[in-house]
């Protein structure tokens, strides 16, 4: 319990070497050790989705994963997806539609939305609502988020809004 473990991983394209306690979860590792505070902690028990990140291409709740489990893995956070430009169209759609208010859920929401759009090029509103149901938002009532994701999906297909 008190013995640190050595991990090596890739975070947003940068190699990271760290000594961590086995009990440290990935969310706390990202926020407190790497100062990647765009990953938010809302419930710490895997329900709210605010801490959603990508590990080896799959979205995960970083509060439910231990940092040591990411040894040799590739982790992507909202900072990485923003800087690479991968979700700039989604972010623009969110901005134009005011699909965020306090913004606390937004990094996780964008992660989940991008995950959906990578799997389904043209999701209907029901599928968008379903896919984002693991990400709580207390401000917007969701409709603006659904609209923004729908808009981004259509734009990726070259469909005029």
């Amino acid at each position: 319990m008190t013995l640190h473990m050595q991990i090596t991983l890739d975070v947003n394209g940068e190699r990271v070497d760290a000594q961590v306690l086995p009990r440290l979860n990935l969310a706390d590792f990202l926020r407190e050790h790497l100062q990647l505070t765009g990953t938010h902690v809302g419930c710490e028990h895997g329900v709210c989705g605010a801490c959603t990140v990508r590990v080896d291409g799959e979205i995960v709740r970083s509060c439910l994963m231990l940092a040591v489990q990411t040894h040799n893995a590739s982790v992507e956070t909202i900072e990485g997806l923003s800087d690479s430009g991968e979700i700039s169209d989604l972010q623009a759609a969110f901005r134009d539609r005011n699909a965020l208010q306090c913004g606390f859920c937004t990094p996780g929401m964008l992660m989940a939305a991008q995950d959906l759009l990578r799997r389904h090029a043209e999701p209907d509103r029901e599928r968008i609502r379903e896919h984002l149901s693991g990400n709580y938002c207390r401000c917007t009532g969701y409709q603006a988020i659904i609209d923004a994701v729908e808009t981004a999906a259509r734009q990726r297909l070259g469909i005029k809004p």
Partner: protein
Amino acid sequence: MTAISANPDALSVLDRPNSYIGKAVPRPNLDRLMQGRGLYVSDMELPRMAHVVFLRSPHAHAKITAIDASAARRMKGVIAVVTGRELASVITPWVGVLTHLKGLKSAPQHAIAIDRVCWQGEAVAAVVAASRAVAEDAAEIVAVEYEELEAVTDMRTALDSGTPVIHPALGDNLAFERKLDAGAVDFAFASSDEVVEADFIFGRHTGVTLEPRAVVADWNVAEARLTIYQGTQAPHMVQNIAALHLGLREMQVRVVCKDVGGSFGIKVHIYADEMATYALSKLLRRPIKFVADRVESFNTDIHARDHCCRGRIGVKRDGTIVAFEIDDLTGIGPYSMYPRTSAIEANQVVNLVGGPYLTRNYRARTRVVFQNKNVMCQYRAVGHPVACSVTEGLVDLAAQKIGMDPVEIRRRNLIPDDGYPCASPSGLRFEQLSHHAAMRKLIKMMDYDGLRAEQAALRKNNIYRGIGIASFIEVTNPSAAFYGVGGARISSQDGVAVRLDAQGSVICQTSITEQGQGSESLTAQIVGSVLGVSMERVRVILGDTDNTPYGGGTWASRGAGIGGEAALQAAKVLRKNILDVAAAILQTSAAELDIADNAIVNDRDGSPRIDLNELSRIVYFRPDTLPPGIQPELMATRHFVPREYPFAFTNGVQASWLEVDADTGFVKLLRHWVVEDCGTIINPQLVDEQIRGGVVQGLGAALFEKCIYDERGQLTNANMADYLVPMSGEMPDIDVGHVVSPTLETELGAKGAGEAGTAGAAAAVANAVNDALRPFGAIITEIPLTPQVILTALGRI
């Protein structure tokens, strides 16, 4: 939009070319939040910062007989373990009362409990350590001995003679009582053709801000100054209260509020653990960080709406409502919350019941009682959902009794749109409402007749759909009548300072705050419009008591109406000052000039004369070239508070269309409509999103959200898996329409919009469920409308 009383003269300063008013421009601060580059308090770290974890009572009511922290204090990384008695050396207790709520009483509350705990979750010791994980480890080995006391949990028996009195010095468990008797209620009921009565039950629920409450308190002993970084809606209120109880002057306390992860009224209060964090910083002379975890949030964030309300309505056969009567009861936990008190919600219920309607006959009583549960206080739309659900539930029951359509009975009783100004039986003054215009618009938007036909057709196939209508009024733009008159140092005025910087951009400091509503955007829109400056050249600073004018903040739907008007007036002064300087530079008169597109232009034809950038250069760096006697003032400050009306009431109507599965008791929301009137709309997109977000919080209360306590005062669902909040998959699309009746008290004409959605959503859903269940003869007047509640009403379980 439907404008029913526009005042073009009063709006001329905003109705300019390139005006941002009425436009859906994006908020300026969104990129930061979308890229994970915001700064929430939970993200903050300061040099020498330590973390506090509170050890909390597992009992609802108990004596603390011993605390042994010796083992915890020896743990590596532990800095201190502090009890309530030790902390009392640096912070004084408080009593949550206000003088205008006559008779309201409460007991002294300490930052950390001393000798006794009064609810499950009350802090009994603070563990401060180098990391939160270490503090949590240490908290586990602090040994606290309790002697359990009988817990008062049921509000309905809290006043019985056999029930223990929680605070013996107060004499009983009654915190507050208010009675109102207007008109001739007994006569009205006697003359009614029908009288309908029902008990309305509201589940205790809470705000569930996605970022929990968080504070970093930094006492710098060398400066004798405390800096509090806190996600709060009211920085100056926090400054005042922290100074008061730590024995400091307000100038020794700075409150900084960066990004806030949701507020909804949860973060407009000051909690005991936050006070303890300020005090710990002073005691330990270093920055202390407190971030509630989710279980703590459920056990300590204020709860709301735990009301049982008996309602009566008298109606004539022609649909005329002749009287309303209510007897309301609410349990607020063991203390009245500080500093806004826990009597406001009940007081609002008394004020608001029957508010949209013509009848003058209204009798009300409310009683507010203590109990050993978490504290209750003001949460989004304070009192409105209770009052609206009771009123609109009764109106629907009356309509059903006399066989009248729910829309028709409202048409016959809503105050006519040309009947203003007027006052309600409880004394609320209405400047201009638009109930009928709103109803007409709603009926059209939802195709009421078409839905009724669809409903009838589907019933033949045993598909049970319902339509629910709820008219409402909403308190916005509160004056000093809300808190100030009761002795609270909670400002009802706000201030805005605007200045032209050395490159012709505008720096704007405002005392309203931002938690995502769009305060920054609406301020920039107003200032940019008045000044003729593009929005990207307006920078808005808020959330810092050192760097903004003094003011109330953002709560009670007041930011746009009050802070927006201050911004408008400040910008007007700066505009005049700029034009005076420009006239001196250009050797013309200010009346010949205007500002457009970041430049001084000829008023007559808009032709450019001098860029603001160039004007600023001359003023700041070559004032020697200005004519003698000219002293430019490129900064202006104005404050505003409503004086004419204590509150700017808004109104609206909501409709719900849903389907009830009579076999499972599940409710599927199909569509929701809102038409509301918040006066001048500064940014239609932001208003619509406030409405939608508010509606969904109301839908949560209607269907899912409830803090479930057992008889011993244990909160049994204090986590996000068991306490249900609305998810995207189960929420409907919400159509929003507007009627526009600007308040004439301000030049801006804006009223609030932040709580309208929450005010009426549950009432619309409850009425729709009853409408759907009509073939079964079941009537439900309880929320949340869980499958269990519905199947019980249907006699199926």
